């Protein structure tokens, strides 16, 4: 079983997020639901 190490965990999250954002690009990140304006764009498209 993997022993949980908070410092390693936080660093792994940082690395994984940087790699994922690098792959998808910032433009895609801005479409995430965390961005309220992305939701407004979806509503406009639906209308």
């Amino acid at each position: 079983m993997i022993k949980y190490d908070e410092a390693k965990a936080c660093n792994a999250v940082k690395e994984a997020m940087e790699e994922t954002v690098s792959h998808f690009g910032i433009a895609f990140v801005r479409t995430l639901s965390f961005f309220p304006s992305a939701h407004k764009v979806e509503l406009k498209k639906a209308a």
Partner: protein
Amino acid sequence: MDVVRLSADDGSLARFEADWAEQCAEMDEDYESYGAATMAPIRAFAEAKADKEWAIAISDGERFMAAACAIRTRQKPFNGEVLRIREVTVCPLLDYGNLDENAYVDTLIAILNGALKLSESDLKAEHIKLHLRSPADAVFFRAFGNTLDSKGVFAATEAHGAWLTISKAPALQLAK
């Protein structure tokens, strides 16, 4: 960036709201309608100040970069406590593209690492679940989950349905 609790009692909710109202004003936006769907539960949590249901924010020391609800609960089929992060909302300056690109990445990292820190302190939990509200969320966090899983730091990382689940130890226990 650090994770902080928002509470109506200690003035942190008021400071948060003043900051985001000011950010909205810079963007000629109306704070009252900013992220209306997610801000309502965040405010409600900050006002209720329940032990296991927190309103949280990510602060860079000057500004509040994001806010969310953090709920500690027990949930089948998980063995141990689960910390659920819902209603994640970024600040108006990020939303309207007024900050450096690095701020996007740093804020996403701070949200997840803030949840990890809470799960080791005030809201102790073995599993962290991040609510994914849109198809774009699911695509992005499935890829993130796979990359994180490959690091071999967590017992398991999985994006399934509307949730990204990061499990520390012990591993998932199947429901009977």
